[in-house]
Each structure stands twice: as C-alpha cells, then as structure tokens.
C-alpha cells in the first residue's frame, strides 16, 4: 500500500493527483471503520494529519474560516465555541473524547452521512466550502455540495480545504436525539440559527432525509411572526414552527428508529430550539 504523508496542501493535492484512487485519511473515524469491516480496501492512502494549514481557523471581517482538518475537540475550544456555539454543541455529541480528538470537520463533510452531526449546523449557517485540486480552487455552497446519502459534489483529486460561515450569529443551537445519552448516532437532529439583525430564522435537520435538510417554508413562515425588536414570537408560533419543520422532513424507517418518531422528534426539537434561541435574542435585546 502506498501511503503519502504530505506536509502542505500543495503536496497533498499533488499526491492525490498522482494517485486519484487513494483513500483520503483525516481523523479516520469513518474510513477506518469501513476498512476494518472490509467495505473499503484501499491500495493507496493520502494522510492529511500533518497538513498544518488544514488545521487552522481565522476570522476575516464577519466570516469565520474553519480549516477542514479541525477536530471536533478543536471546535469545543472556548474562542471558537463563542462564535459558532451550535457547532461546538454538535461536536460535543460526537463519540467519546478519543473520537472527538481524531474526527474532523472535513471528514464529516466528505463522508456526508445524513446523520453527520456538524452538517445541520453548517447548513443552517449557509456554509460555503473551499475545495481544491491541482486543477484549481472553487467554492461550493454546502446546500448544493450534499447530493445524497454519502454522496457529494467532491471530484476525484479534490480536497475540502475549509468551510466558511458567519462569525456573528450568536443565537444558534443544535439539538440531537439518540437512544443513548452519549456516543450515539443521531436518530433526529435540528439546528436553528437566528439572525435577529435581519429578522431571519434558519433551520436544518439531520437523519430525516437522504441529506441534512433545510426547512425553507417553515423559515419563511416564522420570520414574519416574531417581534424582532424584542425577540418575542407571537403566541403559538414555536409550536406551529415545529409542525412546519416536521412537514419538510423526509424520514424513513430503519433499524435505528421509525419515520413517525423521527418526524415527531424534529417537531419537538425545532420548537424547543426556536424557543430557546429566541429567548437568547430577548435577553440580548433587553441587555
């Protein structure tokens, strides 16, 4: 097996151009499970752990750039968590500390599981992804990047370099149901991001469709039913918002849960997440 351990992004892209069939290895928390189960039999590996530039983050104006090599543990660091608290909340629900020390944002994006925990948050934040290959660079909206269960627009020879999200949306939240209190794959999850300045609510769901889904009709409906000066919604709005979000879910029955429960769970989670994020807005406005 050919194993390449590049030190720079250019070296990594060159290695991948050299072996387009190579398995890209970041934290290994997904691909090594596949290798151990015999589902993947790589003959070449490009290991990204030594590419330091993938493991950094930076703020440019009101945009936060998250290197694809940041681990879930990195997302829990207080300075990052203060800017994207829902991403830290999502990271905290992933696995155990050893898994959080290994698994990466880029890995979560590339695996593109409908249950990937950072994905609903990044989707609700309208994240843009920086992709690169030896052919050049391009930027793709996460919304179009995810094309199906474990399917993306990523091309052969291409790497995810970074995700870019707003750095100034403090009212955001991630909630996730699993059948265990920790170390569990989402049965259903919801991310809500409120931008009180422009009066917009964004909501994304996980594990209730072939990809993480936005709930555009519910978002549009709710935006006009909140007093954005105070952050207070009209009576019954949160409950109706939950129902509308659930209507936009497309869950299935599988060995982890049922479609009926998943639809119910996103309704409850969306209602609760809206209530608590708006309560945060109300506190901020009052202060």
């Amino acid at each position, binding site marked *: 097996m050919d194993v390449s351990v590049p030190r720079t992004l250019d070296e990594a892209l060159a290695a991948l151009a050299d072996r387009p069939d190579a398995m890209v290895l970041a934290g290994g928390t997904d691909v090594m499970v596949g290798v151990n*189960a015999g589902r993947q039999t790589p003959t070449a590996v490009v290991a990204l752990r030594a590419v330091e530039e993938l493991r950094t983050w930076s703020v440019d104006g009101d945009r936060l750039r998250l290197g694809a090599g940041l681990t879930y543990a990195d997302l829990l660091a207080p300075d990052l968590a203060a800017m994207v608290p829902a991403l830290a909340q999502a990271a905290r629900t992933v696995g155990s500390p050893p898994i959080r020390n290994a698994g990466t944002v880029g890995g979560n994006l590339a695996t593109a599981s409908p249950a990937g925990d950072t994905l609903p948050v990044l989707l609700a934040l309208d994240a843009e992804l920086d992709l690169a290959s030896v052919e050049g660079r391009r930027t793709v909206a996460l919304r179009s990047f995810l094309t199906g269960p474990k399917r993306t627009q990523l091309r052969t020879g291409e790497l995810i370099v970074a995700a870019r999200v707003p750095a100034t949306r403090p009212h955001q939240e991630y909630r996730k149901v699993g059948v265990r*209190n920790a170390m569990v794959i989402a049965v259903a999850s919801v991310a809500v991001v409120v931008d009180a300045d422009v009066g917009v609510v964004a909501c994304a769901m996980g594990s209730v469709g072939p990809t993480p889904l936005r709930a555009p009709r519910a978002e549009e409906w709710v935006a006009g039913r909140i007093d954005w000066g105070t952050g207070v919604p009209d009576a019954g709005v949160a409950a109706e918002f939950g129902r509308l979000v659930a209507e936009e879910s497309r869950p299935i029955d599988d060995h982890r849960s049922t479609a009926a429960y998943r639809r*119910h769970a996103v309704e409850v989670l969306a209602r609760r997440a809206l209530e608590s994020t708006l309560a945060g807005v109300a506190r901020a406005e009052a202060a």
Partner: protein
Amino acid sequence: MTMAPPTGTPGTPGTTARGVAGGLGESARRPDGGPKVRGEFAFAGDLWADGMLWGATLRSPHAAARIRSIDVGPALAIAGVATVVTAADVPGSANYGLEERDQPVFAADVVRYAGEPIAAVAADHPETARRALAAIVVDYELLPPVTDPELALTGEPLHPDGNVFRHLTIRHGDPTARGPVVVEGTYEIGMQDQAFMGPEAGLAVPAEDGGVDLVVSTQWLHNDRDQVAECLGLRPDQVRLTLGGVGGAFGAREDVSLHVHICLLALRTGRPVKVVYSREESFLGHVHRHPARIWMRHTAEPDGTIVSFEARIVLDGGAYRSSSYHVVANASCFAAGPYRVPNAHVEGLGVRTNNPPCGAMRGFGAVQVCFAHEGQMDKLAAACGIDPVELRLHNALDHGDHLLTGQRIDGTLPVARVIRETMALPLPEPAADELLSRPGAAGRTTDAPHVRRGIGFAVGFKNLMYAEGYMDGSEAACVLVDGLATVQCAAAEVGQGFVTLAQQIARTVLGVERVLVAPAETASMGSAGSTSASRQTWMSGGAVEQACLAVRDQLLAHVASTLGCAAADLEIVGGAIRSVPGAALDVDIAVEDAAPGVPFEARRVFHHRVTLPLDADGQGDAHVSMACAAHRAVVDVDPELGLVRVVQLATAQDVGRALNPLSVLGQIEGGCAQGVGLATMEELVLEAGKVRNASFTDYLIPTALDMPEVVTTLVEEPEPGAPFGAKGVGEPPVISSTPAIVAAVRAATGVDLTRVPIRPQDVALADRPR
C-alpha cells in the same frame, strides 16, 4: 451491611480475624486486576505462535436456504491460502451442541440462520483469509425464513428434531381456584446480547500424538473439549484445552463457537492457527438472550393475596437448541416471581425458528418472566388499591414456603427483607439543573421543565446451580510447600473473580498469604463445570475449600508426628500452627517453617445435594438453592421525546455471605448496567432473521452517562449447605433492575409499557395507533 461507594484502597492488606491478609470476607485485591487496568493482561485475542496461520469463517448471509453446491477452488487458488474446510472435512460427529448435538459444525445442505458457518479457511494473513472467504462460491436456493415462533409451532419442521425444544407444563394446586380480582397482561422482551468486550478468540496447535492443544476463551473447558473431540473423531485426552484470557462472557461463551473450526484447520495444515472474531462476527457467532412473548393472568383476594396464576411463555430459541431446554425450565419455574402462589398453571415453550440461536445469558429465563410478573404485580396493586411494595411484602416467599414446582424452600430466601432493605435506602437528590444529568444529556434535547421523575420497584429471584437432577461437580487441587500454596481448578475465570476467591479460600484455610492460582486446563484437571448459573463460588469454591482442608490436615498430621502429639491438638491460627487450648504441648510454628521442603497435596471433587427431575405436572425438588434481590429505580423522563435517564438504582441483595464485598459490588453494578441496557436500549434488531445492528455503533450498551448511581445493601443470611454460607451473586442484579426501571418510566409518563427495551417512540407516540 449497607455499603456506600467504596472508599480507600480496595484490597489493601489488612488483617482478617485469623491474622492472614487477603482472606475470606475481605475485599482482597484481584491477581489479574493490575495487569488488566494497565493493559498488560493477555486476552485470548493476544495469543501468538511462531509460524501460525490465521483462520476465518464463511457464514451464510441467508436465514433459510438449501445449499446446492460449494466451490472452494477459487479460494484455494489464492497464494497464501493453506486450506479450506467444509462439512465434508469434519472427521467425527457432524454436529455439536451444549446439551444435544443438533448444530452442524458447518452447514452441509441446509442453512437455518443468517450467520451459520459454511466453511473455514486458514491463510498466512488475516487479509488473505478474508479474500479467500470472498472467493468461495456457494450456490444457495433461498427459502422463506420462519421467524415467528407461533408460526414455527404449527409449521413444517425446520430440523429433523422438530421445532419444539421444550414444552413444559406446571400444574400446581387447585386448577379451578380463582380470586375476585383479576389482572392480565402480555409482555414482550427483545433479543439482548451479552455484548462482552473481548471477541471470541483462540489458538490451536497440532500435537505430536495426532491430537490438538487449544487455548480458547470459554466458560466451560471440559464440555468444549468433549464436543470438539467428538467432532474431530479424537479421544477426549487428545484434545487439551487451556483457558485463554477471557474478556467477559455472561453466557455467550457456554456454547462452542470457533473451537472445532480452528482445531480442524490446525490438524489439516499441521500448523498453529489463530482465529479472532471481528465485532460483527462475534454478534453472529454466539447465542443471545431469548426474545420472549409472555401472557400472564393473576387472580387475588381484595386484600391482595394471590389466589391463582396462569402463564404462557414463548421463548424464541432460534435455529439450534443450545440451552433452550433449561431456559424454558427456569422461565417456567420462576414465572410467578418470589411470591406465594397456591394455584398455578404455566405453559413454557422453547421454539425453533430461523432466527439466530439463543441460549444462556445472565439471568437465564428469570429475566424475561420477571419483567412480566413485576408488571403484573403493579397492575394487581392498582386493582386492589394497595401500595405496590406492600402488595409484594404481603405475598413474599420465605423459608418454608413452596415454589410453583411444589418444592419447599428449605434454605434462606429473605424476600421480604430485601424489599424492606431496598426501600430503606436513601432516595437521590432532586434533579440537578445540569444538562448532562438530564434525559438526552449531551444531545441537549431536554430543558429542565420537560423532565418528569418516576419511581418504580421490582423483586426477582432465580435458582443457583444446575437443576433437574443434573449431577454437577467441580474438581480442585491444592499443593502446599514451604508456605506457598498452589491452587488449581478448571473453573473459567471470565472476569467474575474466581481466581481471587480461590486465593482467599486458601489463605483462610491454610494460614498462608502467598497463593498461586494455576492455569485452568483439561489435561491435568477434571471438570469444574461451567462458569454460569451463579455456581462457581459454591461449586468450585467448595472444591477448593475441600482440597485446602485436606492439605491442612496433612500438614497438621505431619507436624504432629514430628512433635509426637496428636493432630487434633493442633490448629492453624493466623499464619501459625498452634496447639489448641488445653493441649499438653505449647506449639507456635509459622506455617511456612513447619515442614521445610515437604509438599502436601490433595485433590477433591465437590458435589451439591441431589436434585430431581420435574414430573409430568412440572412438580419436583429440581433446584438446589435460590437467591433474590429487589430494585428501586428512580428515573427522569422527557415524555414528549420518550428519552429516559436512570438516576438511581437502589438494591438489596440476598448474598448468603459476602466473601469479597468489593467483588459483590462489582457484580451488582455490572448486573445493574445490563439491566439498564435491557430496559432502555439493548436489542438485536432482526429483519427476516438477519441481524441489522451487529456493531457497537448500533447495538447500544450503557455508557457512563447512562449508568445511574447504585446504592446497595448486602443481606447476609448464610445459606445452609453452601460453602461458607455464600450464595452466587452474579445473576440477581440483572433480573429485577429492568422491571424496576420500566415501572419508574410508567410512573413518570402514565404509559402502560409492556415491551423492553423501551424505545423512544413507545413513550412519545404511545397515544398513536401502531
């Protein structure tokens, strides 16, 4: 005694009443504890031999099929593949089985469950072996799998032995007696897995005599040896088993798994062969807890006195018999719970299906019926308008009462006491307003106002040791030289702590602190029986005690002869041989100095008292002894999402005598964890007979965030006839913990939950039609 979470250093050398550290009654330190904690303990998966090959097993992906043909040629053509074996290569008995030989070593013409072995390969590398498996061509004719036990009962036989492993009827008392209060219910238990951490593993080495030496993780070396020898066509003495390091068992290692395959590969290739199952293969390669559907009807007087009990228990045994016959007996004999029931009719059925084989798991039939009878007791209490704990106390079995089988309880069974002691334990603090302590925990699903707290209670019991006339025994040997005792017994140490107990017994009896426990193996030792049925402390503990007593008597006789006194004038006190009070001589010699260089050796076989088979009405003195425990569960529930957080389990357990209190606590906490798992998350999900969640990603077991505080009282009423008065303690913790948790969730939500594990939708969508 009531035990807070242990403080200080467990097993710190102290002084027993007799002056030797680490004796009975102390929380003696485990000899394997340090290495296990440091990661230095060699488990069976760590075995290695120079020049060894790696074995792997091809398993059927189909639950029911006819095999038209198997072509191993493409596998043999792969470089590095040493051999491929199928049913045609099994030289001896084609079948094995724990009790009856009904399970093929390899499926020859019919596949009866998804995961059934078809062939095995040996190759120079695990990856080569895996590729070889993929290259074997099996032509299957698919059959519709029969996965509903009720359909299997009336359907075509799936096996020459038929589809009923056992149909046991218990008729007790007056069949027409009925009380005015009637409660009835149907309960379901999903398929729980033992989920031990160390997957099945072994190393087989061909021997000069044409036999084979097998190091393997197992619960019962001698039973394995006999089955392996039969299948290989060898004499039992040509198959020598040694216990490998066992990473948990809980019943799943009672049956043969890789044993015959690996020995066959070693004999065919003339080279050592190692096999380690993957996690997925482990889920397919061992038996599980029987899923059950149980109907019960109780009638009672208005004051709650039980008048009659009826039950129909259907256990899905899966494709092969394993221990189903005896699981049916336990489920039936203990179906009513630890209560006085004068009149009863119980039908117990174990049925063959095309589901994965089921067999022994901690609690062995008592777990399933306890969930049902405790649900019934709560219903009966409600129907009578009586507090559920009072109702249980009112009907509690005690010494002198009779079981459903007519057997009189002639030992201890302090049911009322474990109930009262459990209720006397402190309740937890009100829910802390802390995210990680709420239902959903890290998932942040639940805010404080969404939480409802509930409290539930349950009691359970089961037998200790094998039953129904089985002639059980265990052999142990002891050698004492210069104050160093070596104890040997073939009892499988699977993590329960027998090696510690054996040391404690020898220290107390012989007055020495240095005790070696020799490896468990079949070549030099007779059978110790299985590490199951809560039996090793009693059976092999009894054998070790007798061997040590015999050595002590030899030592005292030797010293007496050198001193010219009578052995009866001497005793061991602390680490010294001393003259008894009033003896003519005044003797005080350290045991280790008493007979320099002289070895004393003894070997003893221990038997428990005789039991009898059950008659046609399910009556008879079939059981040796019983143990009980009670659990009170406190849970926090998010009813809207159906998420459960178990806050506390309080338990009092009937232990006879706690020989190693810390080990007892370990058994209690571990059993509670498995009870939490069965109540809230553990289930192998099947679809048309195929396991859908054969991984620790999807077969969920409790994490530290799911495990409640456990507060414990050990009820010590020494059991007559038991060595040291001690009862086995491994199984009771897992029996009533599950129903107590479910009762607490019912109390918190008002939902009549009749199935475990509780799935979130069972609570959250309870008002919707299924």
